[in-house]
Structures are given as structure tokens and as C-alpha cells.
């Protein structure tokens, strides 16, 4: 007779992309979604693509305004590499046009900066819940 396997929550790998140390650490520390495990952080789009190749994340939080490669271009490249990746844009650019452009490139959600811990966790939960 087979023994019952312990219940395991499937883990999802999270990559955090933002040019601000403060925001990267804030997301890493404040996110409390059990399923999410931070596998990398990046401070611009170019670095994000390198780390994405190495760690193969399932979920990405993405800033828009960054040096070297901005978030919109990075989203487009990540989605081309892994169409099922879930991307949450985390940006101070609060206008509708920016959100629409990011979604058109393949992002799945949008969180305005500044954000509270609760808003961050709700946005992440909605993102992975809707997968």
C-alpha cells in the first residue's frame, strides 16, 4: 500500500527587477506568499535577462524606468524566452498609457509605487492565483 505523500505547496521561483536597492529589498522582505521563493535580483533589464537565463523564474516583479534596458523592453524579451512567465510591473509611472503598453508586451499585472506590504502581497497573490 502506498504511503500518503506529505502535502507540498508547489514552489514558484521569483525574480525581482528594480534599479533601487530599497525597493528590491522591500519586495524581497515583504512578500509573504508561501509559494514564492526569491531566486534572484537584478538592477536593470540586461542583468535581468542574464539572471532569468540562469534561474528560469516563474514570476517576475519588474520596474519600468531603469538604466541600460527599461522594463518594457525587458518584459518583451522575457516573454519571448518563456511565454508562460508571470510578470508584475511595479512602477511609479501611474498613467494608463504605461500600463497598457506593458500589458501589450506581455505583463500580467500592475502595482503602483509607492505600495504597502499588503498591496504588494495582494498583487502577487492575484498574479499567481490567476495563472
Amino acid at each position, binding site marked *: 500500500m502506498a504511503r500518503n505523500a506529505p502535502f507540498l505547496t508547489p514552489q514558484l521561483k521569483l525574480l525581482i527587477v528594480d534599479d*533601487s*536597492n*530599497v*525597493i528590491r*529589498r*522591500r519586495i524581497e*522582505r*515583504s512578500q509573504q506568499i508561501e509559494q514564492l521563493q526569491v531566486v534572484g535580483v537584478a538592477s536593470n533589464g540586461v542583468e535581468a535577462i542574464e539572471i532569468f537565463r540562469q534561474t528560469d523564474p516563474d514570476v517576475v516583479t519588474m520596474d519600468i*524606468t531603469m538604466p541600460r534596458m527599461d522594463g518594457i523592453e525587458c518584459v518583451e524579451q522575457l516573454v519571448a524566452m518563456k511565454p508562460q512567465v508571470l510578470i508584475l510591473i511595479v*512602477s*511609479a*509611472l*501611474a*498613467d*494608463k498609457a504605461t500600463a497598457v503598453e506593458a500589458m501589450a508586451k506581455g505583463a500580467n499585472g500592475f502595482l*503602483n*509605487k*509607492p*505600495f*504597502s506590504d499588503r*498591496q504588494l502581497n495582494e498583487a502577487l497573490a492575484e498574479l499567481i492565483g490567476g495563472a
Partner: protein
Amino acid sequence: MLEEQDIRAFVYGTTRYFEVAAQQAATVGSPYLVTEGAPDIHDYNGVIAVSGRRNGIVCFSAPRGMLTVLLMKMNESNVSHEYLCDLVGEVANTIAGTVRRDLGKDFAISVPTVVAGAGNAVELPVGERPVVIPINWRSHVAKLVVCLR
């Protein structure tokens, strides 16, 4: 002349940061016009350039103490110079995002730059008199310097 609606967008972008990120509201002091020279600024300054219907700069100028406490309120233990610069840039970034949303097509807003350290100076448009709006949070006072023509 600056219009009240324009000033309100800049002020809202600033106070919103404290209210949401630190979960503790900031209050706005009485604005005043600087009639001679440049206003005194603090150690850490996030500057955005504005063009379009108005041209000039908006600067969020904060003392080290305020930013340190703000970081701590956000559960950040690293209060190094680098992190204080990051934070003042983030506040300026939020102001820029809010203005872009609220005043939209009439304004083009730059990516914020950070000016920090002793003896720093923010370049203001020549011949314009800046308006300074005190931003009070806990026992600290920051300045929102608006200088637009």
C-alpha cells in the same frame, strides 16, 4: 504664475509616498516664495526636470534624519548613504509618476536625478523665484521646491 492645480499635483505625489510607504501621513506647511537667491536645501535631493506647458525643476529636499527614519519605518536596516540616495530618488520618482498621471499631456517629466552631499546645489531656472512647500513628517521637515516658468 504657477497654478494651484499644478502645485497640488506635486504636493500630492510627495505626501502620498509617506502615507503609503510608511503608513504615516505627512502634513503640508505654509508655502512661501523665495525672493532672493536660491532656497537652502537639505543633504539629499531628488530632482525632476519639467518641460511642456511649464519649464523648470521640482526638487524634493530631505534631511538625513527624515530619510533614515523613513527607511526604518519601511523595515529597512541599511541606512547607508547609498540607500538614502535611493530613497530620495524614489520619492522624486513617485512625484514624477503622479504628475505624469494627473497633469498628463501638458507636462513632460524627466527621470529623477539625485543630488546629495555637503555643499550641494540644485540648478534653478534663471530669473524665476522658487516656491518652497514644507513637508512635515514626524519631527522632520522636508522641502518641496517648485521652480517653473
